[in-house]
């Protein structure tokens, strides 16, 4: 076990995969500047600074991925992905299908998002749900350094385009990472960092820690909360959510992204559908507001659901008489 930050874990995974597979390529605005050591180890051909032009960075990754390379592109902040949207959604997401399976697009697009830097909504916009909605793409958003490493390795090896979101608020937080080199975590498997009987808290990214904190606080009330960390947003580990719900009968979904048509809506809809027989109370969603992130640090922090709010929500739910009981 080593201790490292999520950012370091991402770099470690990249280095490991670049060492393992010569077709992996790392490109973006400043990646070669920021990682001169990687240029030294893997060559300037494989670690490339690009022009300041997200559309062509992504488009080039799509073309290269279909032609035998495995590009990892750093698009910096998630809102900048809007410039890359055509390449990601219309090309990477659709051209396998429209060509009848002639091409595949093994590429990873990295983007930072979430509260933690305080520079406003043109840098912090949790828009991962847009890509979950788009066909042909996979979407990952890890909550710990170990998961970031294992999932990024899986994403790089995956034959499909993967959007990989890094939560700004987690980037510099240290955590334990196993030393084994080939710690690959399959995409599509949720984790259960805390098990419990009374209520299920489903989340991803930095709000997993919020849920864990809330769960710890609820213990004092005699409420035993289970926490599910989705880790991969597409494919979604629906079975894991349903399994937990079957046990607890109560569900709170927590995300930093705004609510409408977000991942929490998808989870709540899953619960209302296949999870309905288990539901003993309304499904609660705690999400960021339908608002851009403000530049003001304190306001930005206030957008993130807090452990306090999660606890209040859970207490309200547990108070709800079980309809089926």
């Amino acid at each position, binding site marked *: 076990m080593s201790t490292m930050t999520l950012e370091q874990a991402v770099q470690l995974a990249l280095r490991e995969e670049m060492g393992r597979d010569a*077709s992996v*390529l790392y490109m973006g605005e400043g990646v070669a500047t920021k990682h001169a050591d990687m240029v030294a180890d893997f060559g300037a*051909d494989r670690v490339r600074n*690009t*022009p300041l*032009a997200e*559309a*062509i960075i*992504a*488009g*080039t*990754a*799509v*073309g*290269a*991925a*279909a*032609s*035998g*390379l495995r*590009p990892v592109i750093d698009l910096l902040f998630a809102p900048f992905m809007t410039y890359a949207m*055509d*390449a990601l959604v*219309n*090309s990477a997401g659709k*051209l*396998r*299908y*429209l*060509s*009848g*399976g*002639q*091409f*595949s*697009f*093994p590429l990873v697009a990295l983007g930072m998002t979430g509260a933690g830097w305080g520079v406003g909504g043109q840098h912090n916009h949790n828009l991962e749900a847009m890509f979950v909605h788009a*066909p*042909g793409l*996979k979407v990952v958003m890890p909550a710990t350094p170990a998961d970031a490493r294992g999932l990024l390795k899986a994403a790089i090896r995956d*034959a*499909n385009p993967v959007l990989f979101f890094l939560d700004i608020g987690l980037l510099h937080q240290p955590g334990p990472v196993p030393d084994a080199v080939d710690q690959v975590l399959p995409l599509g498997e949720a984790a259960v960092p805390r098990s419990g009987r009374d209520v299920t808290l489903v989340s991803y990214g930095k709000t997993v820690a919020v849920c864990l904190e809330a769960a710890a606080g609820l213990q004092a009330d005699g409420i035993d909360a289970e926490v599910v960390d989705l880790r991969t947003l597409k494919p979604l580990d629906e079975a894991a959510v349903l399994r937990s719900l079957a046990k607890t009968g109560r569900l709170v979904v927590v995300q930093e992204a705004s609510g409408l048509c977000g991942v929490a809506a998808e989870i709540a809809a899953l619960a209302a559908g296949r999870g309905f027989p288990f539901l003993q109370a309304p499904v609660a969603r705690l999400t960021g507001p339908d608002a851009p992130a403000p530049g003001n640090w304190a306001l930005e922090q206030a957008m993130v659901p807090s452990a306090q709010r999660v606890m209040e929500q859970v207490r309200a739910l547990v108070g709800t008489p079980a309809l089926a009981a």
Partner: protein
Amino acid sequence: MAETSPELARLEGMLLIRAYEEQLVALHRDGAPGTCTSVGQEACAVGVVQALDGRDRILTNHRSGGHLLARGADPGRLIAEVLGRVDGYCGGRSGSLHISAAELGVVLTSTIVGGELSMAPGVALAQKMGRGEPGGIVAVFFGDGAACEGVFHEALNLAVHWRLPLLFVCENNQWQAYVHRLETMSDRAISAWAEGHGLPVRVVDGNDVEAVHGAAADLVAGIRAQGGPAFLELSTYRQRGHFEPDDQAYVDPAECQAWLARDPIRRQAERLRAAGRLDAAGLAALEARVAARIAAALAFAQASPMPGPDTLDRHVYA
């Protein structure tokens, strides 16, 4: 007519494209899906594609029939694709607008205007990094309209700066769907924009297949020798309108007439006739051969089954 020559082959190649697209037009009149034909632009496809070789890759767009046929695509599989049949190059999933054929090196066709420009540098980068066949280059076909999209600028800058083996081929057919290009740009815009990027630029009569071929061959040789990209603007005309059916009510008849008079097929036929290398019987023989191929292709395509709805979500993920 026993003679075969590159010039004759180019004539036959253009005849094949014309016959294929006229067949699509006829099918459309009988209820088949519409298409973007390249009638009038055959010299661009044939002239450029014949300047490439098997190692090379091609990206194209919604108006791809000519490029695919010039590259040797089977017209039967093309018609099958337009009709949405399982024997189409894309199993009937594409329809007419995004037909690619990896086996021919025609890759990643996109009907998003500019999509081909967005992906081409990546294909060229892979070639440069040794993932394609040694020495292979990439040619990307796009229209004058695509040159208005920002990705045109981004692709040129990246290709120049990374010295990618990429031939940009702009088929300037004067129209961008229902808008004349002079409503969106100045007359000399496209080559002037390219020149600003500092790569070799040639502007050629796109209705003269020999001129196109000569310029393309020069530029391709330059790319293979020097590594970096080059730019070819072909002045041509879209004779049949944007997408079948198109009454072209919005087109200036005088402009259209002037370009019809410069039809690339007639021109090549006359050139060969003037040189004593083709007579009426020879031309008729070529036309008959082409017609027979298209007839057989049509029969093949129409016999091909439709994919079942159970295949609806196949090939979404690898």
